[in-house]
């Protein structure tokens, strides 16, 4: 369970978010909506530990009652998925997946895990293809599986569907929802598309302008 307690965000003397609190259970996806520039992405950066220095925040975040906000990024075990799939262009698909699988698993097991992921994606023949040879929808799915293979404790999604064709979006959303439920970790989705929020079948918070 991921919980955020009394989170506030300000840029200079301008308050963007005030006293935001929520909880996300394992396998659930909370959607956060709001106009751009409201500080949605900054909330994700707060949770992943990569906030830019000119923003000031207060508040706490806990994962299963363990404080997150005091930990360094590398100790947080966070998965982040952004608009761009960020697949490494100079590595094949299977290398991209293997990159994420923890190194303490033995080699044969790692390869089986990566191949299993490829089968789940329906592209077992593309193991040695390069990312640019895949369609946008396929790249988005590979990116999600790559993130999940790194065994994160919680997942942050920063408008991961907005670059996709509308026709593809439905499939990818369903895929994401299904995978997160199977991984059974809390996930936070930031979006400005109400369809995204609806498809995630979870709670939805709408942020407004602080007066």
């Amino acid at each position, binding site marked *: 369970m991921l919980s955020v307690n009394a989170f506030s965000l300000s840029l200079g003397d301008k308050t963007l978010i005030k006293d935001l609190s929520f909880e996300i259970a394992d396998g659930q996806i909370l959607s956060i909506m709001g106009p751009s520039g409201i500080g949605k992405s900054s909330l994700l950066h707060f949770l*992943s530990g*990569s906030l830019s*220095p*000119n923003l000031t925040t207060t508040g706490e975040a806990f994962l299963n009652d363990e404080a997150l906000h005091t930990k360094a*990024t*590398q100790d947080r075990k*966070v*998965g*982040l998925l*952004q608009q*761009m799939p*960020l697949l*490494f*262009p*100079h*590595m*094949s698909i299977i290398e991209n997946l293997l*990159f*994420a699988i*923890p*190194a303490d698993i033995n080699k044969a097991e790692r390869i089986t895990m990566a191949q299993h992921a490829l089968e789940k994606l329906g592209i077992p023949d593309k193991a*040695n293809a*390069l990312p640019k040879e895949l369609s946008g929808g396929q790249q988005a799915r590979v990116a999600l599986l*790559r*993130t999940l293979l*790194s065994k*994160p404790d919680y997942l942050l999604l920063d408008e991961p569907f907005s670059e996709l064709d509308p026709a593809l979006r439905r499939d990818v959303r369903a895929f994401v929802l299904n995978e997160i439920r199977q991984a059974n970790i809390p996930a936070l989705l930031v979006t400005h598309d109400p369809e995204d929020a609806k498809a995630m079948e979870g709670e939805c918070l709408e942020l407004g302008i602080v007066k």
Partner: protein
Amino acid sequence: MPLKHAKWITGIITLLLIFPIAIGLVGTLLPAFQYFPPLGEYHISLAPWRNLFSQGEFYASLKLTLITGIGAPLLALWLALSLLAWGYQRPFFRKVEAALSPILAIPHAAMAIGLLFLLSPSGWLVRLFSPWLTGFDRPPNWITVQDPYGVSLILALVIKEMPYLLFVMLATMKSIKARESLQVGQALGYSRFTLWRKVLIPQLYPIIRLPIFIVVAFSLTVVDLALVIGPNTPSTLAVTLLRWFNDPDLSMRLMASAGAISLMLVIVVVLAGWELAHLLFSKLTRAERSNGKRFGLTDSLLRLGVVLGLLALLNAFVALALLPIWSLARRWRFPDALPSQWTWDNIDRATPLLIELTSNTLTIALITTLMACTISLVMLETKRHDMARSTDISKPHLFDWLIYVPILLPQIGFLFGLHVLLIYLNLNGDLCAIIALHLMYVLPYVYLTLKGPYLAYEEEYLLQANRLNHQPWRNYVLVKIAMLKPAIFTAFAIGFSVSIAQYLPTLIAGEGRYSTLTTEAVAQAASGDRKQVGSMAMLQAFFPIMVFWLAQFIPPHWTRWRLVLKNLFSRRNKSCSV
């Protein structure tokens, strides 16, 4: 790069950059005022200056330096602008961009030797028209190269600098939206050349000011090129100073140092004058730009520049082609256009020497360039670090200023000042010293080539990699460096060619104990043994071109090849286990 203590590293690198510059300057300045402990001179005096000003040769050399040092950049700029204006919208011009980099890679000494073979009285140009047109059966008694006015030196400088300026200009075209401006202007009925003159060149100039300054400073101070193809007695100031510095009478060094200081002042004055002239010129032409005339007389100036520019390029290619021909010639009597007998003997005979020169050259170039690449990466990483923290992104970084100093200062004088330090450190004549001096000139070019792509890198890839598995150093190499491969390879090729071309740093730090292809080719250029000089110059040009070609060819194929190799091996492993 997961650097810790970025501030400290910035400080240390800054000191390392400033230290040799300061030593070199002080080491020139003090002897210029008679203070030179190695010769037992401990008193400040103006005697070196009085000696300098009483030398007639100083004034004659200074005049030649001013003629060649201002003439060549002006011509190069004119021809480069003309060629760009003429070709930019033509489809074939994109290929020109790719073809330019090998020309840039060729060491200028090799180019000068090629020109010598082409233009001298017994050169290929006269042979081509003899005897059927000129009636000569022996070389005429003309002075064509090494002429007393420095015309051949200007030509050699233009051939070297024009492609560089063209290359720099092509790289900036996108940022001034040239294509769009041309479309708008042509729709208004302006001729192509007028548009360039009135709209694009005024925008282009401020962006390429620094490369132009580098070209001016180079033209005013070049030594090796002037030794090969420049005028003799008097020669240009830089060459005269080199002779004074090397004079067996060590007290000449004091006067030479004063001369080196005046050469620095000449650079400052010429650059200031250049800027002033530009300011005046743009003031005067400001009204003319918006007078609505769609054509102009000056269009023909650009048109003439195109013809001359193409001629200069043709000259360069023919000159290069002559290098291998000479090295393979057995009998080549005047006025035959080609050798009557061919042979490998020249190369065979020179092989032991060539192998030694080549191994020296490559050792120095490879070590220097690898070091320059590593240092540049560290410098750029600390710069990126600073930029990510500061709110004012446009603020120029300290490195960006310091890095230009060695290439703007004249090598002559400055390097002799450093040589005194090398003697104190007991490093004179050592390979380390040669590499250190090369590094001073290679590092700026590598840094400047890497800067753009490195800072434009999408850092999110690396951040994502670090979230997926936290091994920052491994990820830096496997993700960021691997993705920047094309830029790093190009920077390596440029650094490599800069190192190969170095003449004075090798000579001064090596004290003649280490000869490279460049120092030997320049030393023997005047000897008249064209067959041997041709072989050296050919090798000197061959390696940089080869490395440039590899740097462009390898990166796009790297990943494919790597995957093919990997699958080959994994398949073999599988078949073994079955």
